Every structure is written in C-alpha cells, then in structure tokens.
C-alpha cells in the first residue's frame, strides 16, 4: 500500500459520490481538471504545473483561486503529486467524464 493506492481509492470513492449526486465540482475546479486532462502526457498521465496554468481553461483563473482549485482536486483524490519526479508535476488518478 502506498500514497498512490490511497489516492486512487479516494478517487474511486469520489467517483461514487459523484454518481450518487453528492458532490459537484466548482466551475474553476472543473476547468482546472479539464486543463490537466488536456495537457497530461505519458504513462501514467502527468502534467507539468506550468503547462496546466498556461492552458486556456486555467489561464484566466485568478492565481489564488487556481491554487485553491488545485489543492481541492488533490484533497478529493482526483489528482495527486507525481511520485519520483521534480516538484510541480501532477498525475490524474481517475478518468474524466464531462
């Protein structure tokens, strides 16, 4: 068991919450998540912080709001900090559906 397993478990449970209609992402959280999904590359899918920030969906979000949205997505388990890489990389832990 490692942090990635726990993050994946949280993502799975969050998916369940969403299916049951118990949670909604804010518009900014949704935009940041979509931006991450768009710029992710490789296996596992990872995205650099600068690439996320410069994506059109995230570029217009105020700085503090952007970082709050990023933190919220990490707490929800939908993304996690990429292991064994430089700081500022994020990994998607669940596939997205609009």
């Amino acid at each position, binding site marked *: *068991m490692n942090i990635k*397993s726990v993050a*994946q*478990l*949280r*993502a*799975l*449970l*969050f*998916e*369940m*919450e969403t*299916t049951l209609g*118990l*949670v909604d992402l804010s518009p900014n959280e949704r935009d940041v998540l979509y931006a991450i999904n768009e710029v992710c590359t490789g296996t*596992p*899918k990872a995205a650099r912080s600068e690439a996320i920030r410069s994506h059109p969906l995230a570029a217009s979000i105020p700085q503090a709001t952007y970082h709050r949205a990023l933190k919220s997505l990490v*707490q*929800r*388990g939908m993304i996690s900090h990429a292991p064994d890489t430089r700081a500022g990389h994020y990994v*998607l*832990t*669940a*596939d997205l559906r609009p």
Partner: protein
Amino acid sequence: MRDAMRFTAFHFAMVSTLILLAFALCEGLQGVREVILPHLTSRIHAIFVPFGAMVLLTWVYGWAAMPLMLPASVLAVGVIVGPAGLNWTLLGVLAAKVAAVPVSFDLFRRSGLDVRGEGQAAHWRVLMAVGLVAALIGNVPRVMAGPCCDGFSFGERLATYVTVTAADIGGLMLVLLGAMALFRALRQG
C-alpha cells in the same frame, strides 16, 4: 530488515483489525435482525460485511491481502462457531472464499479491466462487478461443502447460494458507502 518487519507487522495488524471489526459489525447486524425478525432462524447473514472489507483490502494490497486477511478471518469464525465447529472443511471453505477475491481481480485484469490500475477500469461499478464474480466463485464451496447447507436439497442449496451472494454484495456496498462517508467527513472536517 527490522524496518521491513515493522512495516509488515503494521499492515498485518491494521488488516486484521479491519477484518475483525467487519465480523463484529456483521454479528451486531445479525443480532439486530434476530430482535426485529425473530421468526427468521437462519444463521445466514443478510449483509456480509467482511466480504466488503476483503474486496476493498484486496483492491489495496492485491494478492498480498490473502495472508493478511486469512488469520483474522479464521479467528473471527472460530469465535463465532466455537472451537468444536472449526474443522478442516470450514477452514477450506473460508480459504476458498478469501482466495476468490484476488482471483476475481486477476480475471478482470486478464480480460483488460485492471481495477487496481489507472484509467477507466478504476471505477466503483467495476469494483462491484469484481465483487460479484468473487462472491459467485467463493460461495460455490460454501454451499456445496460448508456446514451451512448440510442435508440441503439442490434447490435449497441454490436458494442459499443466491442469498449468500446477495449478502456479499450488500456487504461490499455497505463498506464502500461507509468508506465514502468517512472520506467525505475527513474532507469536510
């Protein structure tokens, strides 16, 4: 070496505690059922919480979950049935039930749906499907050879099979909902 042993001991203790708590909760629910519906004398649980715990723990640990879960499961069953009731047949049925869970995960992985991996397969509905297959596999030895069905006709065994499989799925759903509520509370707290 010492760190590795401590690491293993920690995970063994944690998994054992969760399995024992699941069995305790299950027995508690059974007690409530006996009070509310005293005319139902069957010892078969309506919701088998330990199965849900086994599926979630196997999701986390993979095949390593089996040696972690089995001792606590044997202990719990031994407390429930008493030392006289704990025989090799019962132990075999229990081992088969525990083993059925990682087998099911493996079957799904080999068919392209790796629930423990990343991507679309890491979805709670697929996890429920894995649980269903695990229950279908694991309950065959139980109804064919387990003490619950001694002297049963084929029709009675079939009815029991459906009942215990439904109880397993109920247990899995309850555990998932409980875990979801826990993470939700931690997030909002």
